[in-house]
């Protein structure tokens, strides 16, 4: 491995830990009652977002889902503003009005929705705007295996496919739509193979392998920037925790969950690879420790911030109230 490769890979490892530590901080905030609502963390799915980060440009757009933290970080959304929003603070990205499912960052073209499948039509709108402006920016609409069964998925692909719009539909297939297993309800073995029905390119990648994921996302974005039309990129992965925090997970056994963590943890898998390439345990431990400490410090700082002023609860409904 060249020195350049080594730096790049260490940076990927750092990002994996940065993202996981971020969601660990969210879990801690929930335990401390700083977050009072629903929380969906992405632990186990870090490699997909890390794989996006190297290809995304500021002028690209990402429209994400209810499980959006890693995508936001990959798009360059400010960590502090994001965590403050998740923790319902006045200094949050959305002044405490959005919360964890609804972060909006206008400067970074990042948004999300808590409604499964609803991200794709919005991403389609960005793609159409880029097309009209003859820009080579791309719009990334993130979906899960659950979203891939919505009408919005189909309708979006019809329009994007027919007009060859610069849309990348990234399907994070963790094989569970809450409790419903993908193989139990999908008419096809993969989501990617449905791409041919829309005349677009379908790609399939192991979303627990950060290198493979980075390459696949880079290839998909190159194809789209070059005018090749939409791509459905399906990344398989495992959701380690419940659909939401507090999910009793009656739909899978403890053994199954332990098996997933043992076999498909993208951080552990990557560490093994880097060690095989000759990086030392102490180097890797240092990266891990630094990211954990940074997230802990950030959380401590944010927990001390005030909630929004209740007098402003009706502000921001319309533009004249800004």
């Amino acid at each position, binding site marked *: 491995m060249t020195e350049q490769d080594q730096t790049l890979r260490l940076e990927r490892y750092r990002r994996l830990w940065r993202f996981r530590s971020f969601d660990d901080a969210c879990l801690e905030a929930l335990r401390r009652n700083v977050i009072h609502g629903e929380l969906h963390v992405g632990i186990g799915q870090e490699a997909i977002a890390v794989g996006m980060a190297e290809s995304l440009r500021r002028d690209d757009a990402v429209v994400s889902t209810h499980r959006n933290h890693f995508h936001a970080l990959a798009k360059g959304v400010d960590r502090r503003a994001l965590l403050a929003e998740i923790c319902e603070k006045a200094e949050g990205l959305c002044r405490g*009005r959005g919360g964890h499912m609804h972060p909006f960052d206008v400067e970074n073209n990042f948004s999300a929705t808590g409604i499964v499948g609803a991200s*794709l039509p919005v991403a389609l709108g960005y793609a*159409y*705007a880029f*097309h*009209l402006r003859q820009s080579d920016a791309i*719009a990334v609409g993130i979906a899960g295996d659950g979203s891939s069964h919505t009408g919005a998925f189909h*309708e979006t692909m019809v*329009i994007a496919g027919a007009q060859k719009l610069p849309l990348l539909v990234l399907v994070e297939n963790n094989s569970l739509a809450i409790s419903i297993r993908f193989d139990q309800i999908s008419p096809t073995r993969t989501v990617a193979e449905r791409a041919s029905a829309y005349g677009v390119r379908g790609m399939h990648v192991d979303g627990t392998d950060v290198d493979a994921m980075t390459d696949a996302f880079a290839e998909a974005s190159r194809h789209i920037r070059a005018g090749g039309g939409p791509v459905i990129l399906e990344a398989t992965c495992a959701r380690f925790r419940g659909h939401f925090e507090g999910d009793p997970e009656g739909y899978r056994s403890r053994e199954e969950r332990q098996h997933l963590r043992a076999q498909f943890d993208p951080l552990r898998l990557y560490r093994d690879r880097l060690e095989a390439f000759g990086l030392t345990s102490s180097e890797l431990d240092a990266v891990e420790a630094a990211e954990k400490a940074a997230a802990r410090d950030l959380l401590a700082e944010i927990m001390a911030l005030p909630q929004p002023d209740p007098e402003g609860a009706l502000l921001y409904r319309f533009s004249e109230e*800004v």
Partner: protein
Amino acid sequence: MNASTLATEAVTDRSGWQLSALIAETIAWEMRRDPSVLCIGEDIGRAGGVFGATRGLLDEFGAGRIMDAPIAEMAFAGMGVGLAQAGMRPLVELMFVDFLGVCLEQIFNAAAKIPYMSGGRQKMPIVFKTAGGCIGSAAQHSQCLWGLFAHLPGLKVVAPSNPFDYRGLLTSAIRSDDPVIYIEHKGQLLKKLSDFRNNTPIPDRAYTVPFGRAVVLTKGRDVTLATLSSMVEHALEAALVLEQEGISVEVVDLRTVVPLDHDTVARSAARTGRLLVVDEDYLSFGLSAELCMRVIEQIGPGALRQVERLAVPDVPVPAALALERKVVPGVDMIIDRVRTMAKGA
């Protein structure tokens, strides 16, 4: 802009135009003025819109800015949201208001809420232009539904009644940074401008009519009649008939449901002591109750001798004409109701 200051300007004679042609011209003016304005919808390009409200636009602006969409409302309504977030000003045409059900998600969870959910940081300049109202097309093609959209926080809801307002309110809607539901009345779109009772001359330049300003169309002593959209024309006709009988009706055109100008209605009702709200939308949980309540809150229940409502009595609009006439307010129904009120306390 106020209608009277424009009356003296030289104007093109548009009296033979259908209302839909005036709407198409209004959109064209805004598209020339601002390159970020674009239209998406079914049959708006080659066909020029099922009512002709986008006729000629494809030729002038091309398929990029006048996008003929597949029957995929959920995708293209959400596309409007994404376009607005990307800095464009989309006008999304949903052929009939009844069809908003298939894409309500993007309207009420995305367009309406994102400005608030973003703490005011994300603007949402989008117009959902659609046609409502009863034209004998039965339950799934004859609704108004403005009360439904008004109930959902974050949407401005507009329902013009006459050519001058159709243009001015549409111009305001396209220039607004907020999501606007702009509801045309199907029964008016193909009507000639000269056939409107309220046909203020249309100036040869763009103008806006502000949201949230109701207008008193006829001065009256006995009953305040507040309504909007096509029912305004019915109310004006009813007022003429009642005038012959010595009953003087003050007709107020609300123009917009959100914001709702209850002040103008309350001032009028405080004078006449009688308020009738006529609404082509459903009766319960809607505009008529909301307006009555706001007026009562403002001037107190003692200030009014009578408060009544006339609206579609919570039933799907029936197909047979005899049944439709029984449930959708018309001129005769309005006359009867006002007459009864005027005879009362």
